[in-house]
């Protein structure tokens, strides 16, 4: 009796698995969704071949949706509003979608396959995003684990972007990946120079893109990126600016400061930069140069654990403690933060305790 039951259960499971496998194979090989139309924001129409993920189809049409994982469904950035033609939510989308997202028909474009006519809505600024071919003109160590990568644009020859925005760098096939992978990095250079960009990239152990940049990429190599993306940029107000960053979080802040210098800004600004010891500090000379150019700007590097040989005479302690010591009050202050989620959360607490309204704290959280 028991063995008959087990045989029946096994047979049903086996048939179900076989049918599921057949459906997957059929979808990948036989299914032909033909020509479909994607209508964007109610006016722009694309005639495309169906069957592939929306993210990839849009990319082929020159429309780039931000994605830090290259379409793997592991970053949750490529959200798009699909008002018609999307079908049921997929299990691979659900971890990334809030109840509000679902109610607003937000979908993960890297997971959603285009199988019939579709109506989507995307921010207008994404139409300005382009794919660029570029050449590595310099690659130098800023610290033992951060490199500065300078790229000269080849085609298109110029990029228009705001200081604080980021691009997605493509890592080609190499030892750690058998297909191109994209990762997001903030631009650190002066965005008035439209013919080149600089990135500051910290080595992540086992990281596909950072390992490529640190150990494989050479000056003279060609590399592809797309962008610009992001809304981390300086607001035009009269308030004092508090910048806080650590490690490669330096990048967007430096870009903002270079642009402030171009414009002859006289706004009061203080930049708190956290590192462990002097071997983790970088671009201090550049920041001192900016202090010369910007009359009301002060750079305050802080070391959490200076070595005896460092002969460090500057601020010491965690960056949160140093900010708390220096910032008298949050009145008429706005803040710009860039770093890991833990660092950002700790800084938000210090700033709000000082009276900085949360809505005036802008941040670029890596997490």
């Amino acid at each position, binding site marked *: 009796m028991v063995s008959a039951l087990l045989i029946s259960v096994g047979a049903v499971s086996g048939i179900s698995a076989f049918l599921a496998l057949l459906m997957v194979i059929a979808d990948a090989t036989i299914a032909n969704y033909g020509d479909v139309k994607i209508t964007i924001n109610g006016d722009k129409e694309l005639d495309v071949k169906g069957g592939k993920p929306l993210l990839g189809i849009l990319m082929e049409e020159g429309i780039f949706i931000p994605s830090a994982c290259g379409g*793997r469904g592991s970053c949750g950035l490529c959200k798009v509003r699909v008002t018609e033609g999307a079908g049921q939510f997929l299990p691979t989308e659900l971890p990334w979608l809030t109840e509000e997202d679902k109610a607003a028909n937000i979908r993960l474009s890297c997971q959603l396959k285009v199988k019939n006519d579709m109506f989507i809505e995307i921010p207008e600024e994404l139409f300005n995003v382009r794919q660029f071919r570029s050449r590595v003109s310099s690659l130098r160590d800023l610290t033992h684990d951060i490199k500065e990568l300078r790229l000269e644009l080849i085609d298109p020859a110029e990029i228009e972007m705001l200081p604080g925005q980021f691009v997605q760098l493509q890592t080609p096939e190499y030892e750690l990946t058998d297909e191109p992978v994209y990762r997001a990095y903030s631009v650190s250079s002066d965005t008035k120079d439209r013919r080149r960009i600089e990135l500051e990239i910290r080595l992540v152990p086992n990281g596909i893109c950072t390992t490529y940049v640190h150990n494989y990429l050479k000056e003279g190599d060609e590399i592809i990126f797309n962008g610009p993306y992001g809304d981390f940029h300086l607001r035009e107000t009269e308030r004092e600016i508090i910048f806080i960053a650590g490690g490669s979080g330096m990048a967007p802040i430096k870009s903002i400061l270079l642009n402030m210098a171009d414009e002859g800004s006289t706004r009061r600004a203080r930049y708190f930069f956290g590192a*462990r010891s002097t071997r983790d500090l970088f671009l201090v000379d550049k920041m001192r140069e900016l202090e010369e150019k910007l009359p009301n700007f002060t750079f305050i590097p802080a070391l959490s654990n200076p070595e005896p040989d460092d002969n460090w005479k500057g601020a010491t302690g965690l960056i949160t403690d140093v900010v708390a010591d220096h910032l008298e009050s949050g009145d008429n202050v706005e803040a710009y933060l860039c770093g890991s989620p833990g660092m950002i959360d700790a800084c938000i607490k210090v700033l709000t305790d000082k009276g900085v309204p949360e809505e005036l704290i802008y941040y670029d959280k890596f997490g």
Partner: protein
Amino acid sequence: MKQTPQMKKIQENMRPGVLTLRGFLGADTRDLVEILEGDAAEVRRIGTTHRAIADRMRYLRDQGMRGLGEFIDVEPHFEVRVDSVRGGIPSPFGDAGLIRKTNTTVRNKVLGREIFYTDVNIHLIGDHGFYEGRGSLFRMEPHELAEILEVETEQQQTELPG
């Protein structure tokens, strides 16, 4: 133990390109159940448990978070850095929602050795006894974790001062 259909499905999730580009199995061709049994035997040989190893990993990560992205000293002789990159990864076992890409580096200054692990590793080890397949980029060796992180063995735990 025999590989169940549920384990087979989980092992499918671990293949390259399903949840992550490189997957969780590396070059390991064994069934998931064999991988789990192999590492469980190793953990028993060391004299500890998956839970104790994961708890130690989590403790050092939590201590390291105080460094706000930089290395910080943790008693008695560790340096720990906790860093994050954009994004998250669902567990191949389907039971932990989305796990942030948080990376912890621990230096044991006495041993002069360093180890790197992610929040996904902590979940996989603590909740499932899974250290990833041989050759996987994020494979953790139980004996290395136990040595470098100084995980207390059951023998040490019972040797209470008199």
